[in-house]
């Protein structure tokens, strides 16, 4: 086994702790970090401005119309929640299946999940038109004598996203408790020590603490796996419960779940590459990690290709002209560059991952992962825009074009995601120190 084949770093536990904790506690933020912070802060201001203008003026400032009622709001919602899918998958499913390589990436993947899910949740709320009444989706006793409409996918969304965000937050925090204790013990400033001490909940690392923690963490992981499936299944059902041809398909929930993991893993690749540079930890996130994630992405790409092919097949096999028209419009209609861009990003380019060298070489892996993210975003545009504008009633046919505010909000949320991530790197241990040390120790014993 050569050095590049290793998943786990070959270092003493104390060095590992220092590698992760020092960037937070000892080292000052570099110039690049401040530059990133400024850029992302500016974009976040753009997001706040877009949302304010939206709240004041109403959804008419977007490109949506009576045919394309969803537009960018739902496109970006699905895209963000899809990215938010991989974190819990990596944390929970790979924990239960004892995949050792998850250890160095799970913490920031969970952070990615949490941030992306929170941003995703903004879009359906602001798409409501009167976002300040979003709490009407919650079944609470009210003087209106009403309960939410249980047949509405919007209500399913609320429960799916809210439970997912709550779970992600708790799981993320639970995993970080022992690391907060480490920070508390290493920190010098009184305020840092107190803050980390509160977050560590009095963790002393006793055998009993570990026993309780492991039982709790494992149980949470077991509960998290169904959530990974459910949250994006519900997103898929948002579409398949609609009556438009091209939406009303039973394949949507599984197809959306795989798509979500696909885009989420692609985002993990991009963030892992940035993060490895930013913190200088190539011994923790090794080329082997990119190798493994490349294989996952390749499998995801194949499933997505089969899903698209299934849609084409069923359009033909059903003999339903409206379904066939949707496929034809997607392939050859006004939006053809988007559809072919999607096929390029999701089906064709990931085939490079068959070659081991491509998986391990960052300047190939990362561009392909970015292409996947763009491809998945285009997929959501095509799915969201085409069916309602080419439905059963030709009188309802229309088209969709995003406005400045659509783009501004999208760019703003990208910046907000960046901002949260930039802050995360300086506040919370970005690698799960205790799990990494545990695994290194197991390796040494074995």
């Amino acid at each position, binding site marked *: 086994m050569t050095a590049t084949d290793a998943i786990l770093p070959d270092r003493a536990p104390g060095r590992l702790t220092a590698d992760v904790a020092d960037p937070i506690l000892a080292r000052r933020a570099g110039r690049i970090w401040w530059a990133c912070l400024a850029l992302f802060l500016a974009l976040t201001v753009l997001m706040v401005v877009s949302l304010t203008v939206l709240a004041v003026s109403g959804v008419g400032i977007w490109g949506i119309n009576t045919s394309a009622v969803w537009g960018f709001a739902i496109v970006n919602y699905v895209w963000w929640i899809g990215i938010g899918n991989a974190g819990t998958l990596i944390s929970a499913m790979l924990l239960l299946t004892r995949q050792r390589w998850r250890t160095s990436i799970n913490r920031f993947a969970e952070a990615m999940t949490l941030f992306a899910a929170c941003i995703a949740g903004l879009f359906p709320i602001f798409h409501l038109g009167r976002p300040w009444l979003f709490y009407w989706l919650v079944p609470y006793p009210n003087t209106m*004598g009403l309960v939410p409409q249980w047949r509405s996918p919007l209500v399913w969304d609320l429960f799916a996203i809210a439970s997912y965000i709550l779970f992600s937050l708790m799981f993320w925090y639970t995993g970080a408790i022992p690391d907060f204790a480490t920070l508390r013990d290493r920190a010098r400033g009184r305020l840092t020590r107190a803050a980390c001490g509160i977050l560590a909940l*009095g963790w002393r690392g006793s055998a009993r603490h570990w026993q309780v923690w492991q039982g709790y963490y494992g149980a949470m992981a077991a509960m998290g796996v169904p959530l990974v499936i459910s949250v994006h299944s519900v997103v898929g059902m948002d579409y398949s419960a609609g009556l438009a041809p091209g939406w009303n398909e039973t394949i949507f929930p599984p197809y959306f779940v795989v798509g979500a993991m696909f885009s989420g893993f692609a985002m993990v690749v991009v963030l892992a590459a940035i993060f490895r540079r930013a913190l200088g930890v190539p011994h923790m996130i090794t080329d082997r990690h990119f190798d493994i994630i490349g294989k996952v992405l390749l499998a995801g790409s194949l499933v997505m290709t089969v899903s698209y092919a299934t849609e084409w097949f069923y359009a033909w096999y059903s003999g339903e002209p409206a379904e066939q028209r949707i496929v034809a419009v997607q392939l050859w209609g006004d939006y053809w560059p988007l559809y072919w861009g999607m096929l390029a990003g999701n089906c064709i380019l990931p085939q490079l991952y068959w070659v081991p060298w491509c998986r391990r070489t960052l300047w190939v892996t990362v561009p392909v992962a970015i292409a996947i993210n763009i491809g998945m975003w285009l997929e959501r545009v095509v799915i969201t825009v085409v069916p309602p504008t080419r439905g059963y009633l030709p009188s309802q046919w229309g088209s969709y074009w995003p406005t400045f505010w659509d783009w501004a909000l999208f760019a703003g949320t990208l910046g907000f995601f960046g901002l949260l991530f930039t802050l995360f790197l300086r506040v919370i241990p970005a690698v799960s120190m205790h799990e990494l040390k545990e695994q290194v120790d197991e390796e040494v014993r074995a």
Partner: protein
Amino acid sequence: MSQIFGPRANTVARLALPALVLVPVAILSLVIFLQWTDNATGENRIVSQPVPFSHRHHTAEVGIDCRYCHTTVTESASAGLPPTKTCMTCHSRLYAQEEMLQPVRISWTEGTRLDWNRVHDLADHVYFNHSTHVTNGVACTTCHGAVGDMRLIGQAEPLTMGWCLECHRDPGPKLSPPERVFAPLPPREARIDAGAIHALLTRYDIDTSTLTDCTTCHR
């Protein structure tokens, strides 16, 4: 290294953890509960008016019909407020020098409006129609309370959507026979008689299946 937390920290933590859940729940419960209070609904609120007009005196005691002043109640959405001329049909002679009626006389001689203050104010997105209700057996007192017993008019019911729906979901028991619709006081005895309810529903030809459609009240 000195201790970060003193001996009290454990107690604080034990209190803080449940408080993280209980305090938000308690605040939300309070906010939810407050929706039903008179403060939020305006129930039992007495609104001051330019002239202390007594509905009790004019209806139950004197015997004037509701429709004498609220002339459009059977034909249009709004029950209608009387012009000063309606007041003057009696008060040009009756209590013509009374101090209390000075604003009415000023309105009459100068041609200015009497600015009555609205008591029953529904949200603008509700399309309430008086004529639909009174011509289908919903008595004035069912929503406005015992007007014949009010010296100053007040809001007798909460006027929340849940209150509207109580009747829209099961209108039968609230219906009155045509001769009772404009009575100033509600009937004394509770009348729960399935046969009579059914007879009223049939008589007014009420289709209960569409009464709770969103578009019945929101258009």
